[in-house]
């Protein structure tokens, strides 16, 4: 099967049945199931440690009301981590490269933080539109700018995730194609491109982890502002 460049980004389907749901829920099956032992096996210990670390990091700056979000934020983080890292394997499909998935995650969560803030403490929420200590002349302009920035947040969240991952995957493919094409004619340059590819792969692993983290971190930040 000769692949075009964008085949890896097309939503997978088998005989007309869309498989995107499976590709989103499959990574969860890879996590070790928790036994009710007090001292579990190594994999379960590591998983527990990771979840504890993530939850602590996310929940420390939030106050009591924000702790209701612990479960969804932690599971979001784990989901994004897993999905991004698994997408680096060959011939796999990363759901987060689809804008629909990213926006579907970002939009409702951002809106939830906004509505929570507006509903419970509207004046405090609105006061975030104007940073402290701005000169009086700039106030109207700054309010407009801050409103725009708030409204743009969900788009930014979703598009950031999608764009980073898509760009990374695409680069890997392009440089791999270059390596393959150069192999018969200039093996030396091919080796050079191979080195670049190796470095890029390491970068992509890092990007996968970081993007997941940034997504969840920004959400928790918006939550902080509005709680």
């Amino acid at each position, binding site marked *: 099967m000769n692949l075009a460049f964008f085949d890896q980004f097309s939503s997978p389907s088998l005989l007309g049945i869309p498989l995107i749901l499976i590709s989103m829920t499959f990574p969860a099956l890879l996590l070790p199931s928790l036994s009710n032992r007090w001292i579990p*096996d190594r994999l379960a*210990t*590591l998983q527990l*440690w990771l979840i504890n670390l993530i939850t602590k990091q996310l929940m420390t700056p939030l106050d009591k009301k924000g702790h209701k979000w612990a479960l969804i934020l932690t599971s979001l983080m784990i989901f994004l981590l897993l999905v991004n890292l698994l997408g680096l394997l060959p011939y796999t499909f990363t759901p987060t490269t689809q804008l629909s998935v990213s926006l579907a995650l970002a939009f409702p969560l951002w809106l939830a933080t906004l509505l929570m803030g507006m509903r419970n403490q509207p004046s405090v929420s609105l006061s975030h539109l104007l940073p402290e200590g701005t000169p009086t002349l700039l106030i109207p302009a700054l309010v407009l700018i801050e409103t725009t920035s708030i409204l743009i947040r969900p788009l930014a969240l979703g598009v950031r995730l999608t764009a980073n991952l898509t760009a990374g995957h695409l680069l890997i493919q392009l440089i791999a194609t270059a390596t*393959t094409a150069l192999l018969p004619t200039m093996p030396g340059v091919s080796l050079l491109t191979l080195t670049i*590819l*190796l470095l890029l*792969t390491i970068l992509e692993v890092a990007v996968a982890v970081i993007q997941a983290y940034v997504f969840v971190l920004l959400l928790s930040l918006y939550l902080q502002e509005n709680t």
Partner: protein
Amino acid sequence: PLVRRVLHTTRPLHTTQQSLAPVPPLPEKGGEVRHGLIPEEFFQFLYPKTGVTGPYMLGTGLLLYFLSKEIYVVNHETVAAACILSVIIYAIKKFGPRVAAFADKLNEEKLATALAMKNEAIQALQTAIEEEKKEQWRVGGSSYLFDAKRNNIAMLLETNYRERLLTVYNEVKKRLDYQVAMQTLRRQKEQDYMIQWVEKNVVQSITPQQQKESIAKCILDLKALSKSAHAAV
């Protein structure tokens, strides 16, 4: 071993012991795997028919079949696959033991804190037992304590009695001394008065004639004495 992650309603009620503890211990090592992917059981499964090289021949054959029939096409993904797989394998080989040691350390720390708590509790109880034993021994020696206290009190009482006796004696002595002093004073006064009376009478009885005679005699004596004194010098 049966994995017991089932709902309680499906737990066999009458055929097994109905307790979830003690949990059977985890096996020491995981299942044996060759080349990190293929379980050892697969090799053992093929061993009777094909010997030691069987599975390898199977793998090589499959791979070459896929390649030659172009069921698997070598394209750019192959290169990408080679890269990511080499990165993964390198990471596992390099950091695998460290991660395993870290997980083991986490578990060890959990166990250690629990053990420490248990040992501390045992230690506290031991010290409590020793304290109790000492208290019991102390109670045993309390009769000596009471004797000493009784002696102490008796001594105090005795001292107090003696002191009061002394006070009484002193008071009585003071009164008697007063009487004695009064008597001596009276006798002294009588004596003085008598002497004065005798002197007064004697002075009165010296007549003028006697006075003249005694003065003349004194002058004669003095002259005689002065003569003898002149002579001595």
